């Protein structure tokens, strides 16, 4: 049976044996039932009687056995019969039966959640948390945690100081496994204040001396999480930090598999709180008999802990490792030396000489790895270690991996002026251009262009050759685009090209491999679990609803650092409706320009066909970021939208060819005139794993659009963006998919204008202008809601005939009239009327009554609702009175808000 043979034919015979007195035989029969009941549900019913009888047996072992087995039989008919015995067993006098019954509730919930709720088992289970027997408590906690996980919203595990106290008491008494369940459950609790957090920590710390590593890690999780709430000035905070280090070190003397789990977790802890283990470098030195997975992890942690104080030791170790046998390990060791050089400036020189020694060994993979890291060192310390280039060039022939070849080519290109035969070297690479990987091709293209700019006379032919190879003979769009950019750049203005291509590059940062902070915080909440082993959130590897709940660290309660609490975030959505600072006209123009230039992201450069001198700046802006990209090692990324710096730079050359473009756009802006609110942050990065979305709505002749800026504040590249709206009051929906052409690299942002239409499905929202949006990318799906200004829905044919206006005004009952005050507005009637007209609010008549200007206006919404308005303006009084009449009075308020926003901007 257990080796995979089907013995279900014996079902009736086996069931006959069920009523035996022999406990062992009974267990075997039950095991058989668990395996085959599902395939023969009708036969399984035969067994029910025996189960029910066994649940009444005087022997507690048999009662428990029956309940345990029944829970494992996933046949609907049987679960119905299970309820009564289970209810009894949950209240059994024997703790052994109760603890089995507690787990059985979780089993039943897995089969039929509704049944469990209807039968009230959840309440009974909650009562068991106060049971006198610690093991019953532990199992009840485990069962409740599991059930709660599949119902993230329900407040099943209603943890409060009293129940926490009970759990902490049970913690001292139950088995090692029970302690794990309880600690894992405690980790989900949010203490009210730092006092409570501290008292829980105090009661959890003794667990750090437990022999079971899982207990220790779970205790570490609770402490790491609650520590977040303790103020750093507290004495206790320091004590706790000190107490955490020894148990973590001790975990490294456990069995290798556990060491691996511990090391993966230490890796997280070191990133979150480096101070805990900063003096413990030596324990991470690799031992001869460590399995390879432990060695690799230790190496990772060594680099994280490397500092000026211990760098000498670390380097000596790393050098030793580089002569080991395992290829992966050696490679990682070599790479680690490079990372040390970048991280600890004082050691750079020693690292470089160590790497040179390693290159002398001529071991193929060591040499290649060394060259890759030396490239990074050059980028961190330019013009410092160029003396080694000669040695590197000697090993040119042995490079067969793309990464190493690309690195070498980069070095040659970057230092072309110091390498006498740079052209020969690059030429030799060029011979097999089409067989190279894209990475190498891109690098080669750039390197040759650099070389040309440095030594234009000798290399003209070479550069011609590579440009034609890249643009004409290649079908890789990245390569072709880059080739065209260089080509046009070189043919237009070599001086500018020089500035662009040979511009000073930003130094690379030290820690490119850190886990991004939001993810790290989440993973800290998962210490000890699989998520912490994979360094991925559970949603990445768990199916279904489980694990979708995002855990987060409690907000820091430090004195000054009362940073953004999660509650602060939603209010950002409301900020949209508050009148914000009026942007200077120039800024507004800049915005518009950005908008117009943003979209053609991956196409050929906009200005390419009719380049004018003035355009170079623009291109420069774009190219700079492109160059930046490439030097970040992101070879292959496409043309990215000009960064925010570009519009600022463009302010100056107004009047040049490009200036016309400006004017044009500016013109469009004033013509259509619809007021556009400044962008506000809709989705803060904190809530969306590093994706920040800000935006606004605008309306231009007959089309509504949503202008978004997506900013990647995470450390990983984002791609595969998509957007969707929930049903809303006016049926707003995206008219086209969200087009983000290139993956969004860290710290980059992209501006997108998303056209909208109003043919989506309609559902009345509260407030009326609420819009719920879902944005997806390769990381996750994020939700936010925003309020859109109503005037984007005012259509162009909203001008009513005079007669019609009068008739309608009278026709609409008076109770539908609403009055509002628009305060602090100093415009005169004409200005008001023209301003409003820009946003499709049409003035039909104007009267002057007793020194007051009365404007009669009409507008129409996309769904055909007419709104009539009377605006009373007193020259001496900055407050206007607005009376609105409409058949659907609920829109009035939002129309008023639109008025207010338009008039004040």
């Amino acid at each position, binding site marked *: 049976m257990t080796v995979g043979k089907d013995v279900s034919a014996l079902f009736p015979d086996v069931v006959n044996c069920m009523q035996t007195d022999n406990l062992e035989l009974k267990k075997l029969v039950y095991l058989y039932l668990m395996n085959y009941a599902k395939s023969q549900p009708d036969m399984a019913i035969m067994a029910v009687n025996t189960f029910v009888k066994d649940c009444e047996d005087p022997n507690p072992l048999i009662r428990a056995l029956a309940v345990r087995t029944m829970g494992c039989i996933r046949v609907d008919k049987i679960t119905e019969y299970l309820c009564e015995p289970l209810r009894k067993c949950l209240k059994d006098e024997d703790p052994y039966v109760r603890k089995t019954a507690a787990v059985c509730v979780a089993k039943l919930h897995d089969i039929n959640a509704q049944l469990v709720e209807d039968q009230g088992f959840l309440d009974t289970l909650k009562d068991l948390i106060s049971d006198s027997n610690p093991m019953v408590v532990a199992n009840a906690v485990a069962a409740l945690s*599991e059930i709660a996980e599949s119902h993230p919203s329900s407040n099943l595990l209603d943890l409060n100081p009293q129940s926490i106290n009970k759990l902490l008491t049970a913690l001292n008494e139950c088995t090692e496994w029970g302690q*794990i369940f309880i600690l894992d459950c405690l980790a989900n609790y949010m203490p009210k204040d730092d006092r409570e957090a501290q008292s829980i920590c105090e009661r959890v710390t003794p667990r750090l001396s437990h022999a079971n590593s899982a207990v220790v890690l779970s205790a570490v999780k609770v402490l790491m999480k609650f520590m977040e709430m303790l103020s750093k000035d507290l004495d206790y905070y320091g004590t706790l930090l000190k107490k955490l280090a020894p148990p973590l070190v001790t975990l490294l003397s456990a069995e290798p598999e556990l060491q691996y789990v511990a090391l993966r977790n230490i890796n997280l802890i070191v990133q979150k709180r480096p101070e805990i283990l900063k003096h413990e470098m030596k324990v991470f030195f690799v031992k001869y008999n460590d399995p390879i997975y432990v060695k690799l992890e230790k190496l990772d942690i060594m680099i994280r802990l490397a500092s000026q104080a211990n760098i000498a030791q670390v380097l*000596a170790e790393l050098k*030793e490792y580089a002569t080991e046998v395992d290829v992966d390990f050696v490679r990682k060791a070599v790479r680690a030396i490079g990372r040390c050089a970048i991280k600890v400036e004082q050691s750079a020189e020693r690292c470089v000489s160590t790497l040179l020694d390693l290159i002398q060994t001529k071991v193929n993979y060591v040499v290649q790895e060394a060259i890759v890291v030396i490239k990074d060192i050059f980028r961190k310390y330019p013009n410092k270690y160029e003396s080694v280039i000669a040695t590197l060039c000697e090993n040119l022939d042995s490079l067969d991996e793309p990464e190493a070849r690309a690195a070498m080519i980069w070095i040659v290109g970057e230092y072309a002026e110091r390498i006498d035969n740079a052209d020969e070297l690059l030429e030799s690479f060029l011979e097999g251009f089409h067989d190279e990987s894209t990475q190498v091709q891109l690098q080669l293209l750039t390197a040759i262009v650099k070389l040309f700019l440095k030594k234009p006379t000798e290399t003209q032919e070479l550069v011609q050759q590579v440009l034609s190879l890249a643009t004409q003979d290649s079908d890789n769009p990245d390569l072709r685009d880059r080739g065209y950019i260089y080509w046009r750049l070189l043919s237009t203005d070599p001086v500018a090209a020089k500035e662009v291509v040979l511009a000073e590059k930003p130094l690379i940062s030290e820690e490119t491999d850190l886990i991004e902070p939001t993810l790290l915080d989440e993973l800290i909440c998962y210490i000890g679990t699989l998520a912490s082993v994979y360094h991925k959130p559970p949603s990445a590897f768990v199916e279904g609803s489980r694990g979708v709940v995002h855990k987060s660290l409690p907000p820091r309660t430090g004195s000054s650092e009362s940073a953004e609490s999660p509650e602060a975030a939603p209010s950002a959505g409301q900020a949209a409706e508050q009148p914000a600072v009026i942007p200077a006209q120039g800024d507004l123009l800049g915005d518009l320009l950005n908008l117009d230039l943003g979209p053609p992201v991956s196409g050929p450069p906009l200005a390419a066909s009719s380049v004018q001198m003035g355009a170079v700046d623009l291109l420069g802006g774009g190219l700079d970021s492109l160059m930046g990209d490439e030097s970040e090692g992101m070879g292959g990324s496409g043309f990215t939208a000009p960064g925010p710096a570009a519009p600022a730079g463009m302010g100056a050359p107004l009047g040049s060819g490009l200036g016309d473009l400006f004017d044009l756009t500016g013109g469009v802006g004033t013509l259509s005139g619809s007021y556009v609110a400044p962008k506000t942050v809709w989705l803060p990065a904190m809530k969306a794993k590093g994706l920040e979305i800000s935006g606004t709505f605008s309306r231009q002749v007959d089309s509504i659009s949503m202008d978004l800026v997506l900013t990647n504040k995470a450390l990983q590249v984002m791609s595969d963006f998509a957007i969707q709206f929930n049903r809303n009051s006016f049926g707003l929906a995206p008219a086209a998919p969200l087009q983000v052409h290139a993956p969004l690299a860290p710290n980059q942002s992209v501006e997108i204008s998303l056209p909208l239409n109003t043919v989506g499905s309609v559902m009345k929202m509260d407030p009326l202008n609420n819009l719920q949006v879902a944005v997806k990318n390769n990381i996750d799906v994020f939700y936010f809601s925003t309020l859109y200004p109503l005037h984007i829905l005012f259509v162009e044919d909203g001008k009513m005939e005079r007669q019609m206006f009068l008739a309608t005004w009278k026709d609409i009952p008076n109770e539908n009239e609403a009055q509002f005050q628009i305060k602090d507005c100093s415009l005169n009637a004409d200005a008001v009327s023209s301003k409003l007209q820009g946003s499709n609010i049409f003035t039909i008549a104007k009267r002057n009554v007793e020194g007051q200007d009365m404007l009669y206006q009409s507008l129409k919404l996309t769904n055909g609702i007419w709104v009539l308005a009377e605006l009373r303006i007193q020259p001496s009084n900055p407050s206007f009175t607005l009376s609105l009449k409409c058949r659907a009075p609920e829109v009035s308020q939002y129309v008023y808000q639109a008025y207010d926003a338009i008039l004040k901007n």
Partner: protein
Amino acid sequence: MIGGLFIYNHKGEVLISRVYRDDIGRNAVDAFRVNVIHARQQVRSPVTNIARTSFFHVKRSNIWLAAVTKQNVNAAMVFEFLYKMCDVMTAYFGKISEENIKNNFVLIYELLDEILDFGYPQNSETGALKTFITQQGIKSQTKEEQSQITSQVTGQIGWRREGIKYRRNELFLDVLESVNLLMSPQGQVLSAHVSGRVVMKSYLSGMPECKFGMNDKIVIEKQGKGTADETGKSGKQSIAIDDCTFHQCVRLSKFDSERSISFIPPDGEFELMRYRTTKDIILPFRVIPLVREVGRTKLEVKVVIKSNFKPSLLAQKIEVRIPTPLNTSGVQVICMKGKAKYKASENAIVWKIKRMAGMKESQISAEIELLPTNDKKKWARPPISMNFEVPFAPSGLKVRYLKVFEPKLNYSDHDVIKWSSSTFREHLPGPSTQIDRPCGSSGSRLSCLCSVTTHAATEVQNQGTSTIKLLFCWCLTTCIIS
């Protein structure tokens, strides 16, 4: 939680498969076999994720144990559980081998049913399990027996059953230490730490309360001021323990508040505590290896060991293990003291010395003939290891007292300590392929393990009073490395 548990033999055939959760299908069994057991490469991680299913495995001799899950389980717990599972099986039927597993099919399923429920580990203490999983087909127990079993399995002291009786009450205590040493090529000690274990064998009746005390610096300093004479007697004699972990029978909250180790021991052998120290480690031996490569087919090895303790003390049962390359064809050994032999099956020269006094030195030299190979794979140069017994502990740990108190049975306060002994190992880097290195510099890495065993046995007679005083005679063992 754990969704299923499989046991495979070395060929990848399933011996035991027990599925606890519905989300684990039969194909999981095959997925692990194909992707891990039959994988071409060496296993790169003990956790494998195949198609959103995670597999945790440990290997015991030829047997693979794999736990499977689809959820975000506590990974540390799963591994701890797998080890525990191995312990339980070993306690029931000895070595974990294919044959033993096949012979104990029914027992293993019964155990799996009991210690894992819906993937949640339950009580897994052998002592408790053995009371009701017996494989003897007991048909009925009395009602008292049954409730005793259940209360024990779920009770606070799940590791010990009631009503244990011994004619002679005995308690054995071993201190095992291993020293890890890291040296630079110049012979400097870069780091050294001792990881020690206190192992107990208890054969005591009833529910004895034990208290164990050692020369822990924190405790000594706490009481120290009052009893100045005690510190005077024992000289330096307190040690700073960096960290320690305890068996689950030890009351951790009491240790946290008072630093006292009190517990009710399980019956039989168990590991009471582990500790780690890094300060003031005494290294009993220095080992100086010299390796010379003569041409491509010959290696000359010379190893000197120096004892580094008082001349009046004696180290015993010294065993030095010098690894040889895989392509060794023959070895000639000359040693001045003890016996040395090349063991081809173990790829090592084993040199045994019966006893050696302090401050002496002894050496061995060997010529190793090598078969010419095309040398694709380098030899990993395993360290030289050394095993011995010496009458002191490298960490300086001493047992101060061990008190036993049994409220109902009242053992006597006689106690006889029977014996103590120690064993020891150390590792040095092996004869390397480096040529002509001066002594002690065959690579910077010397990791050496030495272990010390102290056995103290208490025998308690069943007469009147309550506490027990213990006298310890001990032999401790230590080791040193160069």
